[in-house]
């Protein structure tokens, strides 16, 4: 109610200032809405103040280490798996095969999990549904309630995907949001948004770009982007 002070409430830790360590952030972008008073979130401002929340989390981690609930080696394994095994290259491979192989494409759209059995992705598989872009349909994925994302096939979500800006707006004004990503859709294209509210994850099968005629699966992979599989980029728009 009252107050601009910025502290975490916890009975035993009560430091009075903390702002984000500015130098840990690469971007500096305020959120101006065309008026002067906006609450700027702290990207890129080196305030030199301690960040209570971060140091608090670090202390918790040291406790978890002591209790052997975590181990650095195991965490490094997790991170390595997410760096080597998981990422948009998996989704790109799936899309490329669908572009190259009509039977696979049909199976992918009907039962994505069965279609994915063809691949040897070493990932904790999620229940996946793939939705197809066509000349008359554009799909995009969101999770308005938190930030669910098809990580088993696309890796970890970009920060904008997890932002209130994207989460709040893509379901109501998708064309405006897509135009912020540089995608301008004609009024003849139906825009369908998939809000991932259950444990089922959604991925977009982009259109095959016309300039990829004659390419094989390995070559096609190079034409698939993460953003196109989320649905904030449109491939093959002129097909």
């Amino acid at each position, binding site marked *: 109610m009252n107050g601009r002070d910025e502290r975490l409430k916890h009975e035993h830790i009560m430091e009075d200032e903390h702002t984000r360590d500015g130098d840990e952030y690469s971007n500096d972008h305020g959120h101006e809405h065309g008026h002067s008073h906006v609450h700027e979130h702290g990207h890129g401002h080196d305030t030199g103040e301690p960040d209570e*929340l*971060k140091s608090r989390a670090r202390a918790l981690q040291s406790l978890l280490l002591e209790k052997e609930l975590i181990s650095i080696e195991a965490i490094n394994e997790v991170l390595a798996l997410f760096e080597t095994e998981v990422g948009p290259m998996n989704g790109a491979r799936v899309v490329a095969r669908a572009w190259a192989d009509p039977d696979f494409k049909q199976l992918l759209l009907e039962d994505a999990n069965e279609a994915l059995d063809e691949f040897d992705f070493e990932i904790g598989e999620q229940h996946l549904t793939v939705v197809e872009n066509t000349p008359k349909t554009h799909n995009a994925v969101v999770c308005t309630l938190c930030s669910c994302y098809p990580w088993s096939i696309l890796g970890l979500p970009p920060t904008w995907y997890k932002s209130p800006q994207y989460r709040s707006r893509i379901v109501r004004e998708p064309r405006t949001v897509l135009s912020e990503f540089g995608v301008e859709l004609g009024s003849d294209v139906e825009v369908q948004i998939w809000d991932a509210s259950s444990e089922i994850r959604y991925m977009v099968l982009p259109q095959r770009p016309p300039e990829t005629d004659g390419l094989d699966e390995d070559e096609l992979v190079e034409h698939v982007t993460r953003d196109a599989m989320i649905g904030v980029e449109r491939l093959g728009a002129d097909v």
Partner: protein
Amino acid sequence: MNGVHDMGGMHGFGPVDVDDDAAFHDEWEKAVFGVEKLLRYQSIYGVDEKRHALERFDPVTYLDSSYFERWALGSETLLLETGTITEDELSAAIEAHDGSGLFELDDSETDRDRVDELVELVHEAFRSDASFERDPVEPQFDAGDAIVVRNDHPAGHTRCPRYVRRARGTIHEVQGTHVVPDEAAHGTEVAEPLYSVRFEATELWNDDTDGDAVYIDLWERYLNPADPE
């Protein structure tokens, strides 16, 4: 709960920062991510409990924290609430902590068997498929059926956002029988038919939309037939 996390359709957050593209901004975020995954593979708490822990933050805390800051606060909350750690242990750790990041800490005293066990949990998690489907329950609706979303406002966790409540939609697909998050978040496992439901954008927002349709997965308890007999 009707919380600030339920932000579909809200105004006032401004343009999407399309250039803020990275998954992580720094080592701290990676550490939080790794810790969270490890705790989850140990099944200390479930995904629905975790989501609800974040929703229970004070609204300003929720909106004014980054994604990984919410993860860090959420796991702390649940570790305390599950009794995995105590307040005393945590305050002692905060007192004793020298400021070093996770990856700078000395891990050498950790029991080797325990490390192997944790690493194996990671690999096991990657080998296994997601498991949230349960024995099939006969669905009340079929694809093509017209439904109207109930106007419930539960104080606890729900995956039925405000923007679809009272709206009329069409069952796009029956998704099988899935664990109901509204109960799982509070410690009870119940499974129910889940549906992909299509809503026309104008049904959700009248003329205040530039979209055409929204698809969302809704559990049977959220739905009524559109024309009840």
